[in-house]
């Protein structure tokens, strides 16, 4: 199977999720970063400073549009109005990548404002395949699909998540956005081996990596990990990131932070740490191949 072929050149450095609170740091400080990423839903606006600011950022950096509202896992088709608005942003900002989630949020006219878990069944795969194909045709480009954090699994699942993603990639030609924090959160919540997960996904389909922090809620005798994007990236996630890079090589890596927003410099430090991980592992790989 051929690996994911990006439509646009991919940046070779790490990026940070762009927040309104950091506009000045980005526009005036011009940090040394590979890209920025935004939720397109936040820019589905008539006009105004939000869009002109994003244009100013875009004129200095590659941009990634990371959707949270398309609900690709819905039994229902993708909302055509949503696709029209997304296409307008893609045309205007020419992102190097467009991504969405392996999840759903919409049932008929109910929008449930979270990334909800999909039963990993052949029926869900068929619905997700149709919706990914539809979005890719509407946008005229391939998208990346991200593995979500989940807090429940369905008893009638007939695939693992890596099996589902592999089948989706094969059926649609989409790529994967590998969220390392979400793998860790799910592995701890559902009791699977995160390294086994990394070995099972089609690594050559990965076009981007996400890193974030999470919280740990205590319930009775056990912990439940919650994906909050509200804390620094912890050591477990950094360790799993190294394992991911060893397996799939360096990839554009995004630091995601949406809550408890720290000074921009803190996020920049995390981005530099990710760059360091990639550089040192590439160095190690070169040395190993020289030695071998």
């Amino acid at each position: 199977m051929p690996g994911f072929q990006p439509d646009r050149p991919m940046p070779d450095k790490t990026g940070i999720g762009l927040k309104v609170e950091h506009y000045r740091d980005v526009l005036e400080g011009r940090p040394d970063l590979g890209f920025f990423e935004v939720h397109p839903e936040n820019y589905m606006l008539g006009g105004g400073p939000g869009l002109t600011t994003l244009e100013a950022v875009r004129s200095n950096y590659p941009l990634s549009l990371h959707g949270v509202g398309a609900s690709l896992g819905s039994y229902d088709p993708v909302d055509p109005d949503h696709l029209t608005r997304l296409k307008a942003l893609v045309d205007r900002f020419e992102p190097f990548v467009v991504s969405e989630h392996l999840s759903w949020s919409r049932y008929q006219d109910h929008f449930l404002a979270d990334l909800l878990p999909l039963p990993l069944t052949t029926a869900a795969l068929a619905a997700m395949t149709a919706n990914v194909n539809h979005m890719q045709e509407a946008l005229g480009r391939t998208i990346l699909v991200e593995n979500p954090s989940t807090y429940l699994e369905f008893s009638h699942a007939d695939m693992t998540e890596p099996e589902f993603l592999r089948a989706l990639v094969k059926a649609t030609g989409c790529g994967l956005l590998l969220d390392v924090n979400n793998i860790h959160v799910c592995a701890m919540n559902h009791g699977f081996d995160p390294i086994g997960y990394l070995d099972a996904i089609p690594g050559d389909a990965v076009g981007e990596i996400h890193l974030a922090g999470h919280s740990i809620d205590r319930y009775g005798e056990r912990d439940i990990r919650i994906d909050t994007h509200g804390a620094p990236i912890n050591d477990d996630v950094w360790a799993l990131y190294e394992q991911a890079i060893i397996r799939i090589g360096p990839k554009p890596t995004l630091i995601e932070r949406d809550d408890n927003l720290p000074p921009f410099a803190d996020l920049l430090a995390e981005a530099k740490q990710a760059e360091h991980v990639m550089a040192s592992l590439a160095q190690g790989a070169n040395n190993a191949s020289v030695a071998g």
Partner: protein
Amino acid sequence: MPASPDKITLAGIQSAFADALSGRGDTALAPHIKPMPGVPTNVQLDIYRNNVHAALARSTEGLYPAVAKLVGEEFFHHMMRDYIQRFPPQHGRMVDYGHELPDFLESYPPVANLRYLADVARLELASYLAYRAPDHTPLNPAQLAGLSPQEVAALRFEFVPSLTLLASPWPVLDIYRLAMAPEGEEPPAPEMDNNPARLLILRSQDEVDMIPLPYGDFSFLMSLQTGANLEDAAAGATASQSDFDLSSTLAQAFSAGVFSTAR
């Protein structure tokens, strides 16, 4: 092979999940959830219920920071439970969610004693919408040079898309500024009785302006907005405010960037 009791369609799961997240019960969904050792199913679903509530409440609080300050963050998030029940979101654009809050507050019994609250919310919504309205170049008054007095008198104006005219029996701009002031820097509390607000809200450059207007100016712009021509709007304004000065009002309106077209 007999059909498994677990066989349920994707639409069935999603319908049952929507019920569970919208307060209509977990019974249809719960049998299909794989047991998580040590964690009851309703606790797993509570994580999603909390996420959905937090996403909607925080997005709405971001739109109405002054209302949230006036009622307190805790009360605001509690109130959002009732708001979400009544106005569940129908699409994934959170930037367009929460726009019914002013009307909701108008008839929400727990805040009935804060009679100005709905109008503070209207001010915040108008400001929010102005910030995101389509970009538009205001009408240059030089374009009207050369018209005869009769032609000027017959002019009808359209307003820029960011504009709202807001009237309230309460001093809502003062209340808004009081709520939004940093701690220790609050302006004095406004006189609440017989202190109505008449505001022009619009975006100029990258900022939203909230401009208090005299009664005559406000009624003049209201008349123009509802389609009156310049002469009739000015006559109405003079009737309501004897010292209404058409030329200075027009000059201020042009400088504030009120008009988009005239014909």
